[in-house]
């Protein structure tokens, strides 16, 4: 309930965030509805219609294979949002379980799990992504796997710290004094408070994960053709940068705007939902 109230206050107060949400809804809506509203399939090649400029039939023109650019941008968003959403969900869940187990159980479990996070945090994130997708093969499940494996360790560590802090708080000590079992304390008191923080972090993680996905696709070890992805479209357009710069500029602009608004929304949500900064 307090979270709902905070959300309401958030929607009313922050104009930059409200505008960002509007842009995000536009991008998300377009990506979700494109199969229904676009007359063009994303992979229909028309080699007699390559490199066309904007027209009534193709609002943003066609690419080097005669495919409709706007349709591919929308499908690219669909794929980016799906991959990143799944990856963030997965690494949030893994981080939540390991963080709670480490912080809530403590002792040897904590030590083992934290050494494991140390190993994953020692890799530069992009190196790890390239390593996993490069070696396993650039298929979408592996891309999601790689992105989740990069994100969970940081999440686990922060949630563990939060759980440790909560265990010392008065209301948890009081519950224990009243005879609550440790699994009840963990499930009811610690979990409820840690979940908010996990949600805050997850909303901040979406932008960077989309960036990582598009970087992999740009390098050729992410989403594979004929599926579109913003990173892949930028890489494809790069070959025709001299003659048809718009093929690179459109996906670049959409990708940058998406990451920017996701950052605004994430930071603003974090401020509104974080119990430590929430006005009382």
């Amino acid at each position, binding site marked *: 309930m307090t979270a709902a109230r905070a959300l309401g206050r958030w929607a009313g107060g922050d104009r930059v965030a409200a505008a960002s949400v509007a842009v995000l809804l536009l991008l998300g809506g377009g990506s979700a509805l494109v199969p229904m509203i676009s007359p063009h399939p994303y992979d229909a090649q028309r080699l007699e219609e390559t490199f066309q400029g904007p027209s009534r039939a193709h609002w943003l023109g066609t690419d080097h294979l005669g495919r409709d650019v706007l349709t591919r941008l929308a499908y690219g968003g669909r794929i980016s949002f799906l991959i990143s959403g799944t990856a963030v969900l997965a690494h949030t869940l893994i981080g939540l379980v390991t963080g709670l187990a480490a912080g809530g159980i403590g002792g040897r479990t904590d030590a083992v799990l934290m*050494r494991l996070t*140390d*190993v*994953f945090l*020692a*890799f*530069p*994130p*992009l*190196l790890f992504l*390239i*390593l*996993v997708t*490069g*070696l*396993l*093969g650039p298929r979408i499940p592996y891309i999601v796997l790689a992105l989740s494996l990069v994100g969970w360790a940081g999440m686990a560590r922060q949630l563990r710290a939060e759980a440790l802090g909560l265990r010392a708080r008065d209301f948890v000590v009081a519950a224990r004094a009243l005879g609550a079992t440790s699994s009840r304390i963990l499930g009811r008191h610690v979990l409820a408070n840690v979940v908010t923080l996990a949600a805050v972090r997850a909303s901040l993680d979406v*932008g960077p994960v989309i*960036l990582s996905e*598009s*970087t992999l696709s*740009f*390098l050729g*070890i992410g989403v594979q053709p004929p599926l579109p992805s913003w*990173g892949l479209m*930028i890489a494809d357009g*790069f070959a025709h*940068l*001299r003659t048809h*710069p718009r093929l*690179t*500029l459109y996906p*670049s602009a959409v*990708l*940058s705007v998406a*990451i*920017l608004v996701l*950052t605004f929304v994430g930071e603003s949500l974090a401020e509104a939902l974080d119990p430590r900064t929430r006005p009382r």
Partner: protein
Amino acid sequence: MTPAARVSWGTVLRYLARRLAATVPLVLGTTLVVFVVGRWAPGDPVQVLLGDIGDPVTEARARAKLGLDRPIVEQYLRFLGRLLHGDLGVSYAYPGMPVRRLVGEALGPSLLLGGLAVAAAVVLGVPLGLLAALSPRSALDRLVRALTLTGIAIPFFVVAVGLVLVFSLRLRWLPVSGWGTPIHLVLPVIVLALRPLAYVARITRLALRSVLQEDYVRTARAKGLGPAAVNLRHALRNAAVTIATTAGLTLSLALTGAFVTETIFGVPGMGRATVTAILQRDYPAIQAIVLLYTGLFLALNLLTDLGYALLDPRIRYTT
């Protein structure tokens, strides 16, 4: 006052030894991760090496020569044994080429680009952050904020593509890609410097804003010192710790930026070597690259912590 004199060197050495000891299992862990992923992955280095000729005798001989016919545990232990002697092995993809030389040759260009990028970030970022901090909410302050936000949010390759379009293709001032002359350094350094610049400017502004509110700055002002003396001698000096450590950490940003930047600009550095080694299943090279990157990252983190502790007398080691 010299804060460094307050810390005894014995404490520093003991702290260093403890931290270094803690990194050993970490580095072993990363090599194990690479090993496990490598064995689980499809693709066979012998096939990449020989092509798809499919002569079983030649293949078996090559496999035996690389030690790939042994049990996996033995392969890993052999790798560790060689590593203890400082031997990183021989490349699968380029027979006879020691991995140490392969990686050593690639490291030069990457370190040059990364170092120049961080230097540029500090030279531009500190004055920008300083000016923004001295006049909060001015037009300049807003400009710096917008710049840092763009630097953090816009992908490397989008910036690179934009720069190539304007400076190489339209204005024709700079080459699109290549390596060997100073002019080839310009675009990659700009691309790599952008994000470090954003962080350095942002941290300088933040650190100065907080230092400027400290009592000793007020005292200096009250004593009648001019604004230049207060801002530079007292404030900037004390914010220097934070700025220096941030700059150190951004070197790791500049080095991971290499994957994309070197691919776009055709730089024969670590980023390109990594992608090539992975696509060729050159496991000795991959292991060496991962060791080098994680080693560099751990070392940078350690130096940062050490820098904090040495420069800021309020931080004490726990030994």
